[in-house]
């Protein structure tokens, strides 16, 4: 009889939808705060502007053009181009631009309660 009771009292099979969300990592929470406050948008605009000013964007476009010419312009995928740009792109961001953005991000992180 006890066994039957046990089966009645058994907790229900967890519904996938009802599963409790895993806790967000701190990074994820930061990201959410950035987006919610609108700061991410502003930072994006700022970075875009700075990268255009310093010619970074043109450099990257030149890389893409060269790659497309070599590979044949109809054989190129967005993924290809991302892989072409990313290493050089990361390395060639001017220090001043990077510093400016990091400063703003850090200020934001200080100002926001987490």
């Amino acid at each position: 009889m006890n066994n039957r009771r046990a089966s009645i009292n058994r907790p229900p099979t967890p519904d996938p939808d009802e599963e409790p969300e895993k806790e967000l990592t701190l990074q994820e929470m930061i990201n959410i705060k950035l987006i919610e406050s609108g700061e991410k948008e502003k930072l994006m605009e700022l970075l875009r502007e700075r990268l255009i000013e310093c010619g970074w964007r043109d450099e990257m476009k030149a890389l893409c053009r060269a790659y497309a010419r070599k590979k044949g312009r109809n054989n190129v995928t967005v993924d290809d181009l991302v892989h072409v740009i990313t290493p050089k792109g990361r390395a060639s961001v001017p220090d001043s631009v990077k510093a400016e953005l990091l400063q703003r991000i850090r200020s934001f992180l200080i100002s926001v309660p987490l």
Partner: protein
Amino acid sequence: MSALNDGSSSPRSQHASRCFEDLLESIVVDVASECHRIARLGLDRNLEDEEEELRLSAQARVADPGSSGESNSKNVVDIFGQTHPAIAGDTFNCMNCGRPVTAGRFAPHLEKCMGKGRKARTKATRSSTIARNRHSRGSPVTVYAPYSNATNSNRIPNGTTAGEEYTDYTFEEP
């Protein structure tokens, strides 16, 4: 707890760097996407190829001195090494009216031969012409009607009405 000014190793700085990399990646994808579009649409190369062609043709023109572009185009040689007169001169027979016609004058000929007759006609007047002709000729079938059993397969040398009937009958036959 590390000081706020502790270089890049403090957690806050790490988070900041991660945010920065995030932003940069979005922008990279933007640029890649735009370049992909330019590459696939051929927008970029068009400019380059056009410039090259302009330069080459300018060179060719310079090599052959004097004269306007118009007369020069007759002397210019194409990729097979042939030269062509400005106005096409071959002669053939119009498939509509059967008359011999010069290639360079074919388009204006067709305008008259198929469309206008002596004066410009609208489609309404054409069908009334056909109705009239149907009675006068007796046979509702034209030489070009695809579903007909017409034994008369000769072209009617009278260009105007035959052309018009042809045009309309192909539309009107079920």
